[in-house]
């Protein structure tokens, strides 16, 4: 029997108010795959990610986590298998960085349990992975926007799920830290996890994604391998902006065909 996909959606329809964001979307995410969700602003990337994470209900369709319907997992079991990064995470001001990252260990601890030395070690490793070693005792309100974003990513890394759902993980990050975070996620993919991330940077998408979901404003979707979908022609249509592709994979990048005035 083949291993079931880590996360799968079958005939997913999402609506927001009277608007249909996507219709009959199906995808299967397997171990080692990196999926990128692309589309213009307001097209429903965040809604799709939150739905796949089980944080909101789909209008129609089914989602399975490791072969079992999402609804059959308890909240805690779900949290051990999939993690989610909010687009704009909220940070309580007086909490310390270590307290924030330890939230990621919540799904592994019993109701009466306290974090062990092992949990703290995992949290410290996660902080090191986002270049925040030594920040453990800092209060969240003293951090910059990019540092806070890295704390949120470290929390997700400490959660160690099988499926990483990330809503614009490179928000607020400088170029070096964008690459560092994406490399960390790639390493998790190589170790058997899967990543589904909404990104606005087509060049990072072209560098890392193995698969892609393209969401159009009219509710049409395209799902498939990145090599097929990430073409100048398709992306130009998707964003309503003429793009040209330069270079070859893995250094393929997309730039606007015409310079602005």
């Amino acid at each position, binding site marked *: 029997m083949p291993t079931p996909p880590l996360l799968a959606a079958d005939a997913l329809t999402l609506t927001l108010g009277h608007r249909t964001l996507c219709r009959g979307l199906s995808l299967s995410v397997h171990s080692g795959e990196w999926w990128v969700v692309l589309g213009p602003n307001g097209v429903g990337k965040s809604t799709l990610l*939150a739905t796949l*994470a089980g*944080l909101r209900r789909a209008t129609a369709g089914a989602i399975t986590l490791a072969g079992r319907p999402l609804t059959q997992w*308890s*909240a*805690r*079991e*779900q*949290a*051990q298998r*999939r*993690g*989610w990064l*909010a687009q704009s*995470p*909220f*940070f*309580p*001001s*007086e*909490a*310390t960085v*270590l*307290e*924030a990252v*330890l*939230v*990621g260990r*919540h*799904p592994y*601890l019993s*109701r*009466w349990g*306290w974090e062990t030395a092992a949990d*703290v070690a995992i949290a410290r490793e996660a902080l090191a992975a986002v270049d925040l070693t030594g920040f*453990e*005792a800092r*209060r969240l*309100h003293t951090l910059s926007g990019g540092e806070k974003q890295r704390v949120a990513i470290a929390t997700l890394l400490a*959660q160690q799920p099988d499926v990483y759902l990330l809503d614009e993980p490179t928000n607020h990050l400088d170029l070096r830290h964008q690459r560092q975070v994406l490399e960390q996620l790639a390493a998790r993919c190589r170790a058997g996890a899967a990543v589904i991330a909404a990104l606005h940077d087509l060049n990072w998408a072209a560098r890392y994604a193995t698969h892609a979901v393209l969401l159009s404003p009219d509710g049409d979707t395209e799902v498939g391998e990145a090599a097929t979908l990430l073409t100048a022609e398709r992306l130009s249509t998707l964003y309503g902006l003429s793009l040209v592709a330069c270079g070859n994979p893995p250094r393929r990048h997309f730039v606007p065909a015409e310079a602005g005035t």
Partner: protein
Amino acid sequence: MPFAEHRAALLLLLVGLTGAGFLLALGVGALPLSVATVWEAVWRPDHPAFPVVWGLRGARAAAVWCAGALLALAGLLMQTLLRNPLADPYVLGVSSGAAVGALAAIVLGAAGLTVAAAAFAGAVVVMALVFALARGAGPWSATRLILTGVIVAAGASAVVALLLTLAPEQRLHSMLFWLMGDASGAAFSPWPMATLIVASLLLVPWGRDLNALAYGEATAQSVGVPVAQLRWGLYLLASLLTATAVTLVGSVGFVGLIVPHAVRIMIGNDHRWLIPCSILAGGTLLMVADTAARTLWAPLQLPVGIVTALLGVPFFLWLLARARI
């Protein structure tokens, strides 16, 4: 772990301060007693000072401590629930709602537990209003929250004024305490203490869930917190704690605002430490404030609500002035 030593040290310090505050409350007053006398009288029912120490001051100090602890815990839970450090039973109008409930019951001739139940109903109604109105799209905005609280409190004080106008004159004085908070009539009853203990015990296994909830409901849910259940539980618990405090000492303000915030500044945001520290600090703060209120201008006894407001208003403005809210 950072702050690990701070946390234990603060908890121990607060236990010590609670004891010291209690001795102070027992010793100070129209008949000043030395610490040694208080210490002797506490243990000996035949001691001449025993009635003063236990009967008068002890009962009042215990009731006031309990009210302060209840308010601090209610404030802490509201702040975590609404993810807003300005949330507090008094600021949000929940205390006023409880006072309206209790007063309406008194005017209708009720007494005892019926009054407490009416106070709880009033608190729940205001919490429901705050929930429904303060939540625009997205997270709880400080502006909406404060505006909701101000408007609800204004409406509640109008109702209180109406009830006072309608009330028979001989009851008027005893009803005034609901307006500003006054402990002069506070008598010890086991129920508030039982409510405090049960609420604290109920919260013990939820400490980490509360920590996660501080990062937003979606994030909390994504790490496995049963958010819907927890939200309802906190909502009811915060209302119950507020109503219990209000039936003890009336609408005393700002304890729930000052205490959790000060504790957070000292030890971070881990609720497993925040809860016991806030309970001890809230109780002690209100007990000391009440001791000051009844002795500083003796024989005049100030309502304790005036003292907490004098402390709380500048604190609130300071919080508001800081850029991060």
